[in-house]
């Protein structure tokens, strides 16, 4: 959203990223000094704890504001643990814990067997591809204690971290919990379980992917208007125009689906069926948009687009990684399809029109 009705939160977010996280500057930076400055600015403005109520030491922003923060962080391909800290803060608030400064992350981030915790609070199991695990002050985990969901916090120092052989972006590590001691354990509130984290995480990634797609469109359009071939800018070729029009359509679908899911979290968070339809649709449709849109963005950019030096890969790589977080499109589609078929053909139209 770009009009004057943007909230203070959204305005502040944009300003910080524009000042401290310009993708071209970051991509060319010789060292990581800018990361500390960025994190400090984010923390000082309260953005990192937007999903924590004020009573728990957070800023208690609205759900839609926080999803906007996530989307704008996607627009800048922000390479610090902002989204992950938002999720961790949300979990800590549910666990009645106070939030400390510093970046955090959550697990599980990819579908797999549940992380287990015993009566002494020791964690075992594995969490694949956890973003920003290495630098986190804490990994906040949803674990299974003999069938009961609990929220636990653990230091990455007490886990075994293995960098993944291919990093799509976002500094991922496979985390092994080998009787790792937790710092705290709290029962998850009634009705809250691993699927609830997964669903919120999916909605967050949907917003981040949307932002990344917006920038893919922006820089592809810009590039096409500058790059000259055959005596004219490539934006003059109908084939290129039509490709960008299709990328525009994917951005449109992503904006719609992620906005609709965020709106549901804001206004109808108690409606489980509504949340499921909206989040599943967003995660599926935006994953598809990333597939098609990312391919178009790279095609328009030609060879320079697939170099490490060019910024495009900051967006496509992250988007390709975010797709797999908190359930891939295929898994969400299977779950949505199963429900639709089980409810019967006559129930589909009323379901769609309830939104």
């Amino acid at each position: 959203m770009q009009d004057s009705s943007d909230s203070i939160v959204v305005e502040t977010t944009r300003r910080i990223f524009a000042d401290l996280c310009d993708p071209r500057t970051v991509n060319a930076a010789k060292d990581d000094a800018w990361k500390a400055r960025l994190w400090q600015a984010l923390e000082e403005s309260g953005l990192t704890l937007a999903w924590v109520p004020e009573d728990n030491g957070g800023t208690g922003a609205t759900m839609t504001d926080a999803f906007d923060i996530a989307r704008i962080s996607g627009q800048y391909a922000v390479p610090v643990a902002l989204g992950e800290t938002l999720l961790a803060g949300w979990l800590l608030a549910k666990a009645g814990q106070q939030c400390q400064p510093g970046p955090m992350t959550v697990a599980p981030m990819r579908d797999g067997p549940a992380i287990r915790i015993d009566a002494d609070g020791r964690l075992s199991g594995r969490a694949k591809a956890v973003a920003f695990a290495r630098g986190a002050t804490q990994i906040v985990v949803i674990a299974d204690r003999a069938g009961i969901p609990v929220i636990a916090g653990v230091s990455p120092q007490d886990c075994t971290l293995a960098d993944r052989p291919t990093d799509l972006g976002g500094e991922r590590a496979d985390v092994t919990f080998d009787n790792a001691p937790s710092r705290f354990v709290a029962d998850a509130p009634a009705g809250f379980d691993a699927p609830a984290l997964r669903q919120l995480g999916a909605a967050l990634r949907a917003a981040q992917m949307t932002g990344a797609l917006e920038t893919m469109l922006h820089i592809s359009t810009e590039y096409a208007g500058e790059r000259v071939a055959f005596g004219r800018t490539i934006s003059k070729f109908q084939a290129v125009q039509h490709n960008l029009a299709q990328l525009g359509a994917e951005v449109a679908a992503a904006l719609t689906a992620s906005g609709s899911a965020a709106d549901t979290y804001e206004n109808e968070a108690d409606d489980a069926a509504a949340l499921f339809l909206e989040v599943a649709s967003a995660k599926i449709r935006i994953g598809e948009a990333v597939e098609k849109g990312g391919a178009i963005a790279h095609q328009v950019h030609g060879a320079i687009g697939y170099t490490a030096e060019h910024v495009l890969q900051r967006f496509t790589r992250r988007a390709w990684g975010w797709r797999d977080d908190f359930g891939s499109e295929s898994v969400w589609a299977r779950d949505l399809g199963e429900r639709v078929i089980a409810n019967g053909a006559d129930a589909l139209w009323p379901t769609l029109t309830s939104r």
Partner: protein
Amino acid sequence: MQTAIRFDPMRLPPETEKLRQEVRAFIAEEIEAGTFDPALGLKGESFDREFSKRVAAKGWIGMTWPKKYGGAERSYLDRYVVTEELRAVTAPTWAHFVADRQSGPVILKYGSEKVKQEVLPRICRGEVGFAIGMSEPNSGSDLFAAAAKAEKVDGGYRLSGTKVWTSNAHQADYMIGLFRTSPPTKENRRHGLTQFVINMSWDGITVNPIIQMSGKHDFNEVVFDNVFVPDDYQLGEVDGAWKQATSELAYERSGPERFLETYYVLTGFINAIGDQPVDLRTSEGVGRLVAQLHTLRRMSVSVAGMLEAGKEPVLESSIVKDSGTIWEQELPGKVRSLAAFVEREPGNDPDLDDIIDFALLQAPKFTIQGGTTEVLRGIIARGLGLR
């Protein structure tokens, strides 16, 4: 970083829910009475004058128009709800749909008082239907290359030339036709076309059927041989039709009819599955289709909200039409692919394979009628600043 594209999360207002339930009750009665069978979809007869009169009796034609012309002065969002409910069951609305969606609004905006009084109340009563006379054998997408002539005579014009792809001209009472009154100018190649309301019973009009490969007779060729049109029936300024096109297209392009034409194939498939155990491939396939459909509908509702707020979302409505028509076109093929591993109980009526086959034969026209893909993508590219 930002994009010019906006699709705010619009929800239809709670007040529309009561109307939605009324429309569903009406549809249920009509199905019970045997007026149409939703499972047949596009195979069914789409033109039903008596059905249109019953829709009109409910106040659902010309809903947004002034009461003095027979309308109900209801909101555009109310109309959206009625439209999507009728389209989802492929109800036979063809006798009034075009008149309601675009012909009436154009007459309201640009017509003489005489024509408004003559035509609009009759549309609202479901008594008359309209055809659109724009395309010609040598100009379709290139609308402003139209060559059929309107020659000025005393008291009116004489029309001559041929229009083609005119849906429903064989059953329409009126047509809104685009005719050339002057040559284009160097400054404006769109200059020189004028729109007229034409009574299809006037002398000199011949309608020849064009049968589609599916066997359906939707389209026609309409030949004008010195047809006299009184001055009163001119719409807007002479030579100025190019100014009238844009807002009309925003209304025409983004509605639920642009992605629901083959919805019945999806529900037909789910019905064919019935109580059989479902495999991963089938679940995933259906889930993806539903996610795509939900998103398309949310996009369309968002555009409806922008139109209700008085905006002209040309970029957004072109995106909805482009994405929607491709989706509804591809749907029969995707269902066919998923249906390959689903058992069909013999005697299921209608047969799913026949439904898919017929939809495949209708599908090519979705991305051509009302604005082709290639033209829409040019409009989208312009909206993105590329042209």
